[in-house]
């Protein structure tokens, strides 16, 4: 019966076997793994060029065993445009946080999406600026306390959290836009499926694909990892619903 022994779980080859610098309970590690698994699934590691952004995700090249270009803050979709246009047969993705993509980089993401650039964007939304120490982000929820909204986000002063996946779905150039979370095993599995779907959109040459991933930041939320994880279901998902907002990849 020795032939029945089957490996059912392995470290993704696209992911380096190193310890991450992420805080306990941070979900970047989980999302990194899902991205790596998707690369392995399609066998694109050797032809992938990742574009790193500024924030906790800046060390992309430390964790993924792929070629990487580092972009200025918010500019990853513009850098990736240059990369994809120069190397149209390569697999190109950006990995950006919420401050990077939804504040300083709104112009670049909207126009890359609107041009229908054949890239995939992984957008990690944890409602705060992680690396700089928990300041208010464009996705910070109403009344949420951060180091620059110490009395809670006041929408009269600060405006409202931006729902990027819905916003981008409005653009003609976008083929695929969805939001997922990695707070429960079921959601992790679903997130993996959606990321693969987004990758497949690019691999089949069908245009721009976007996946927003809701993620916990226990350190800057001032919560332990379990409470932080629970907050995703209790507070974030009600404001940022999990859904596929657009999928014209089959059309």
């Amino acid at each position, binding site marked *: 019966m020795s032939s029945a022994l089957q490996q059912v779980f392995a470290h993704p080859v696209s992911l380096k076997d190193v310890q991450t610098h992420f805080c306990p309970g941070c979900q970047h590690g989980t999302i990194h793994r899902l991205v790596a698994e998707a690369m392995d699934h399609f066998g694109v*590691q*050797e*032809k*992938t*060029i990742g*574009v*790193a952004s500024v924030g906790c995700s*800046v060390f992309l*090249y430390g964790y993924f*065993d*792929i*070629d*990487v*270009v*580092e*972009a*200025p803050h918010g*500019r990853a979709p*513009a*850098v*990736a*445009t*240059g*990369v*994809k*246009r*120069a*190397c149209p047969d*390569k*697999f190109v993705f950006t990995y950006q946080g919420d401050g990077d993509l939804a504040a300083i980089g709104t*112009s*670049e993401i*909207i*126009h890359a999406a609107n*041009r229908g650039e054949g890239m995939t964007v992984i957008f990690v939304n944890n409602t705060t600026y992680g690396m700089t120490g928990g300041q208010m982000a464009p996705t910070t929820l109403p009344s949420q306390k951060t180091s620059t909204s110490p009395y809670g986000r006041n929408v009269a002063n600060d405006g409202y959290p931006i729902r990027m996946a819905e916003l981008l779905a409005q653009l003609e150039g976008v083929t695929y836009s969805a939001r997922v979370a990695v707070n429960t095993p079921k959601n992790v599995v679903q997130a993996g499926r959606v990321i693969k779907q987004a990758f497949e959109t690019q691999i089949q040459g069908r245009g721009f694909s976007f996946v927003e991933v809701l993620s916990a930041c226990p350190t800057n939320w001032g919560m332990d990892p379990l409470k932080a994880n629970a907050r995703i279901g209790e507070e974030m998902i009600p404001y940022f619903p999990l859904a596929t907002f657009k999928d014209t990849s089959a059309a």
Partner: protein
Amino acid sequence: MQKRLLVKGNEAVAMGAIEAGCRFYFGYPITPQSDIPEYISREFPKVGGTFIQAESEIASINMLLGASACGQRAMTSSSSPGISLKQEGISYMAGSELPGLIVNIARSGPGLGGIDASQSDYFQAVKGGGHGGYHTIVLAPNSVQEMYDLTMLAFDLSDRYRVPAMLLGDSVLGQMKEALIPHPYVAPADLPAKDWAVSGKDGRAQRVVKSLYLGDGELEAHNWKLHRKYQELREREVRCETAGLDDAKLLVTAFGVTARIAKTAIRMAREEGLKVGLLRPITLFPFPDKAFADATAVAKRVLCFELNTGQMVEDVRLSVARDADVFFYGRPPGAGSLPTPEELLAQIRKHYKD
């Protein structure tokens, strides 16, 4: 006879870039350089090039960063206010040791300023422009032919040293037409291979194009490495034009369009019997400091002429022999107020001493 075309300066830049094998252009419209993207958008489809009119100057410099990271010859062009917006990306390119061409057909400022020719971006161009203490290679053409030739040279120097290059023109050079003799581009045989470019690792070790260095001592080492390259540029790549230095009592120095005005003024002065010479920096970085030191061993008086209130004159003062006197004549630009050769001739007479 070689084929001579009547060509606008901006178009000569575009022609030189295409001839030099540049196939990626990213830009945003701004007067007085829009002829460059217009020409390229028309000609690129014929040669398989990629032209993107970006959503902003910021996006266009970052698209250039991305295409350059893939090892492609790529460029952007703009005018002063747009060049300010590009400084972030230029700093990242410098830090990431990425080549690429940035064309500044300068106009007047500060702020929205005006669309007249100006040399008030000299400091911004040669002293780094953005944050972090870097340099770009800065070439200053003074004719339509040089707009073409120096565009080609800029790509070669930029590729060789992995330092972004800037072509610094102005709205006169961009808009004027002169005879251009096009010639085939020949790549230097010893240009190093781009063995740092990303392409998907495909069996080799991972490549990373980045400017972040957080390890102990890494950033210091990186900055010393950049510094050594700038020193190498200073030693090997200085270019300037000189005339009449043998007997000159007064040396006139100017770059770009003001050098053209100076050439006529110098001819007029020579006709009056004044011994006046010319030293025209072609590379603004690296600056021709040794040429100034040598020239002022003979000519003890230097008149620096600029279309601003005095910028290059500071580098001239740092470069001349210790006993040389440096005078400045310049004007900030404004509508219809370009200085004339006659005006400069009056300054030459004023500062000349036999």
